[in-house]
């Protein structure tokens, strides 16, 4: 292939291997954790708007507030809140991991894998803990 002549004598790019694309990449831990950081970030964008909506409902009076509370307390609302709880803790731990990278720390492959596992473990544990507390408080 490297011998093939380009059209009209134009210099042809060297036949180097292309960077692997998502489609032919074996999924691995750091990649999955990175993608999930972005997803949870997008979920929290919506979460911030839900919090703003809560404040607006409170300011609008008792009827609006009780409606909003009922919405959040419905099965679908609870599912969203569980997802947001996970997103908060995941994005928090992942964000601290990113801040460490900004300081030049934790780039070694072994370390990156370890911290990736730690992010997932922390997010799951903290989410379960929060909802156990919510359960004991009679919120479920």
């Amino acid at each position, binding site marked *: 292939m490297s011998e093939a002549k380009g059209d009209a004598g134009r210099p042809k790019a060297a036949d180097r291997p292309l960077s692997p694309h998502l489609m032919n990449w074996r999924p691995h831990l750091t990649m999955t954790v990175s993608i999930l950081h972005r997803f949870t970030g997008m979920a929290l*964008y919506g979460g911030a708007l839900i919090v703003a909506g809560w*404040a607006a409902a409170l300011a609008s009076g*008792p009827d609006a507030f009780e409606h909003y*509370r009922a919405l959040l307390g419905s099965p679908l609302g609870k599912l969203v809140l569980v997802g947001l709880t996970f997103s908060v803790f995941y994005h928090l731990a992942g964000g601290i991991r990113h801040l460490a990278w900004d300081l030049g720390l934790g780039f070694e492959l072994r370390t990156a894998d370890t911290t990736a596992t730690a992010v997932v473990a922390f997010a799951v544990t903290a989410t379960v803990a929060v909802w156990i507390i919510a359960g004991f408080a009679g919120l479920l």
Partner: protein
Amino acid sequence: MAGYRTPLGRVRGLGSAKHGVGHFIGQRVSAVALIFLVLWGVYSALGLAQADYAGAGAWMRSPWHAIPMAFLLSAALYHGQLGLRVVIEDYIHKPVTKNLLLILSLFVCWLGAAIGVFSILKVALGGGAF
């Protein structure tokens, strides 16, 4: 038009605007603030989940709650706007769609922050029933 201009003429005035790292720094600084605000937010949400209208109103009337709440909401939406901007710029390549989405996201964040902070202040400063 461009064909008649020298390479130097074409790039003059289009160089560094000297605030290229603004997005990066803003995202990091708001991230540091949100570490604390978000933990406080989850803690508060657990307490507030049981509160009825009167309880939530009483909670919001304390400056120790209203002020961090306003900070949490503003910092979260600022950080979210910066974050979603990167996502849009990464995946949407059509200039019109991309710019419309960027503007839409900016409007949504400002609107959310304005409504949120106004509502917090209304409850916090309103005193009695409304």
